[in-house]
């Protein structure tokens, strides 16, 4: 009964989405209020029924209803409750359900928090989001129904893929999707603006917080995923340039460009067409990512066994949405206008370079990701692009951009002077150069890559701090009240500093772990000692233990430095009987300066095991950097000008303009 209610709700939601996506647009076009007023109620009704469907599906997981095919294929009565609930997005149908539910959440948020927008604009915005929803709901209902019954019911389920039985499964997909799908709001904003033929400072100010929220979620989602891969896949990598990782990374790069471009549009009324184009691109890349993951064209950890019809459907949908948006762009963009002019050396030009760099980086990742698919589709044979391509090209493109990150925030709008910026940054330059030489030497070996990496990391971090000091000094000169001055600096400014600092921390982490990690694959018997770096790993043997739905061989390793035990690691090899599969669970001792990482390979003769041992210096800085970036985003969102502006805008746009300028 419950699954049928879910199915029925899904169909109702589809009907409401159709109303939401079409009727209000006609209403606005023909100026018929009764029609355009349908947008909000239709969107909310859609939200209610999607949530209802979602609850029905998750209830079926909760209640172990194995007469539902999807539940039977992705869950098991022995699966712990948290994973049973998260198993909803463990397969194809449920992931789509999660996608569309999150879209409904975003749409609902727009109906609640976008009250200050002009009536017609808001209606168009909600309606465009409805259109996006139509496609995905149709996809679920016609090709991937999660409520399909299995008759006769299975006695027990086939269990969730053991790879996914991890706390990461509970957080990574929803957070990542919040980011992915969140760009649909920026996309809808852009489309509505194109339909409106008007794009001004206020437009940028409305869009900014929405885009930043999506960006924060995407940043965290990618970081969670990377961390999960690090400890779960058991080979110690944190980024593989896997096509699906790339699929989430490309929207991030373009989204980052969009955040910066929006800042220019808001403050200087420039980059207007460019901002619209980026909004369209960010969401298009999110859709492309969905296509890559869900169509089964890829060899990846994320790929499920899928049927090709689905791929064709998504491809068609992609063509309609992206093609349609770009056509509209080509037709209407000239109306929007280019915006204010600026000098060759100015904050605008530096942000433009930042945008070019980020988009070029996204382009090079896109090339490496899509080329093999294209060649395959054209029948030119199967090829793949090796990670060294991504490593070298990505670093080469990003490095100049990272250097400019230090200069940009110090440059004045409209026209800036390079010598003046140089003078202000000389301390940062000295600190960065000295650390670029010293840090690698202390760690053991100086190479070009580590020196460049450390330089850029310290440069980005130190210029951010100098920027802050400068800002406080200027304020001190006017009124010497330190506390007031610190409080007086807008939160958005602190947010930017923090996000940039996060980039610096991230770069240091990547550079040091790439440059100085040690790795060994060994055969170890009981009481063997392995020397890796300056640590000794004593293998104390393996014992059998039983988990809730698996059996495990747990090894014990005593790690010591200079004869003193610093930690005990217990990596496991788990056997999940339902799927007959084996999982490696590495054990890691995380630390600020290094991680010790041990994973068990296979049992060999005489109680010996093959063992993999890593020492990963500064690897935690990679995720710490991402979290700091996200915190920066959150801080920027809390800036009071968005709240003030949003309240005032409802009454008088001009007023708000003055509040902001002040």
């Amino acid at each position: 009964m419950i699954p049928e209610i879910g199915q029925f709700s899904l169909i109702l939601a589809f009907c409401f989405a159709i109303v939401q996506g079409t009727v209000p647009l006609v209403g606005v076009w023909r100026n018929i209020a009764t029609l355009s007023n349908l947008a909000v109620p239709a969107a909310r009704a859609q939200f209610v029924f999607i949530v209802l469907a979602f609850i029905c599906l998750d209830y079926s997981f909760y209640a172990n209803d194995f007469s539902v095919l999807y539940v039977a294929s992705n869950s098991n009565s022995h699966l712990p409750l948290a994973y049973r609930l998260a198993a909803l997005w463990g397969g194809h149908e449920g992931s789509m359900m999660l996608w569309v539910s999150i879209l409904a959440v975003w749409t609902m948020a727009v109906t609640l928090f976008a009250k200050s927008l002009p009536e017609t604009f808001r209606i168009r915005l909600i309606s465009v989001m409805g259109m996006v929803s139509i496609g995905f709901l149709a996809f679920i209902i016609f090709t991937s129904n999660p409520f399909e019954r299995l008759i006769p019911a299975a006695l027990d389920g086939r269990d969730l893929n053991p790879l996914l039985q991890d706390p990461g499964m509970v957080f990574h997909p929803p957070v990542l999707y919040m980011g992915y799908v969140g760009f649909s709001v920026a996309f809808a904003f852009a489309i509505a603006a194109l339909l409106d033929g008007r794009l001004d400072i206020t437009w940028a100010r409305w869009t900014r917080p929405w885009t930043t929220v999506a960006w924060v979620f995407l940043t965290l989602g990618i970081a969670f995923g990377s961390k999960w891969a690090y400890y779960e896949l058991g080979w110690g990598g944190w980024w593989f340039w896997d096509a699906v990782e790339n699929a989430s990374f490309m929207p991030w790069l373009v989204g980052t460009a969009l955040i910066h471009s929006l800042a220019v549009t808001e403050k200087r009324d420039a980059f207007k067409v460019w901002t619209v184009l980026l909004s369209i691109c960010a969401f298009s890349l999110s859709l492309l990512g969905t296509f890559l993951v869900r169509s089964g064209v890829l060899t990846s950890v994320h790929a499920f066994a899928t049927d090709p019809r689905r791929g064709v459907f998504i491809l068609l949908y992609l063509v309609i949405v992206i093609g349609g948006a770009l056509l509209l762009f080509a037709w209407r963009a000239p109306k929007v206008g280019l915006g204010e002019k600026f000098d060759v050396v100015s904050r605008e030009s530096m942000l433009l370079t930042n945008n070019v760099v980020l988009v070029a980086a996204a382009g090079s990742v896109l090339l490496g990701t899509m080329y093999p698919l294209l060649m395959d589709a054209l029948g030119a044979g199967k090829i793949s692009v090796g990670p060294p391509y991504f490593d070298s090209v990505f670093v080469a493109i990003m490095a100049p951009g990272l250097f400019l990150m230090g200069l940009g925030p110090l440059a004045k709008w409209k026209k800036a002077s390079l010598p003046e910026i140089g003078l202000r940054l000389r301390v940062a330059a000295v600190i960065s150069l000295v650390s670029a030489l010293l840090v690698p030497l202390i760690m053991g070996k100086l190479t070009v890559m580590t020196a460049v990496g450390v330089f850029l990391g310290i440069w980005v971090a130190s210029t951010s701090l100098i920027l802050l000091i400068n800002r406080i000094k200027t304020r001190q000169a006017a009124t010497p009240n330190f506390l007031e001055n610190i409080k007086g600096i807008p939160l958005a400014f602190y947010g930017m500093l923090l996000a940039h600092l996060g980039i610096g921390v991230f770069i240091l982490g990547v550079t040091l772990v790439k440059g100085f990690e040690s790795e060994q694959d060994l055969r170890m018997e009981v009481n063997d000692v392995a020397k890796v770096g300056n640590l000794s790993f004593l293998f104390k043997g393996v014992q059998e233990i039983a988990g809730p739905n698996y059996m495990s061989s747990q090894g014990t390793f005593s790690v010591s430095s200079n004869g003193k035990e610093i930690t005990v690691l217990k990596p496991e090899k788990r056997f999940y009987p339902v799927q007959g599969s084996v999982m490696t669970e590495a054990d890691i001792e995380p630390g600020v300066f290094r991680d010790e990482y041990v994973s068990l390979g296979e049992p060999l003769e005489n109680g010996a095991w093959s063992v993999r041992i890593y020492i990963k210096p500064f690897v935690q800085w990679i995720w710490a950097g991402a979290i700091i970036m996200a915190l920066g985003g959150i801080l920027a969102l809390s800036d009071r000008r968005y709240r003030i502006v949003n309240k005032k805008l409802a009454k008088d746009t001009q007023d708000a303009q003055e509040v902001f300028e002040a």
Partner: protein
Amino acid sequence: MKARHKRFGLIAVGLILLAIAAVLITKSFRSNLVFFFTPTQVEKGEAPKSGSFRIGGLVENGSLKRLPDGLRVQFKVTDTAKTMLVEYKGILPDLFKEGKGVVAEGKLNANGLFEADQVLAKHDENYMPPEAAAALKAANDAKVKEGTK
């Protein structure tokens, strides 16, 4: 006038940098393309003699054996028409199983042994890597053709 000259110069520099970047990207791209071959193609000598490439197919039942040092393993990859011997040093991925699909990346040595430095089998049990599936299909198509002759 001066501002215009400056702008022109900067645009020129920008274009030159862009051109250099494009050349470097293409170069790096070409040198990192990894081509895929089926065991049948390798047998015919179509695969590169030096340089990395990928192979794919099924791990032949009963072919997995561990060499005395405990870390190196050998197994046979088959596309049901031809098989080839693969050697790998290191820990095999969890979902590596005899009779299941596999993709390996590496080089042929002088004796015709495929020395893999990467073995990909990280999927759920229903999932067949597209490369492995393609290898099986190619071999099967060839057999069907053979039969109709």
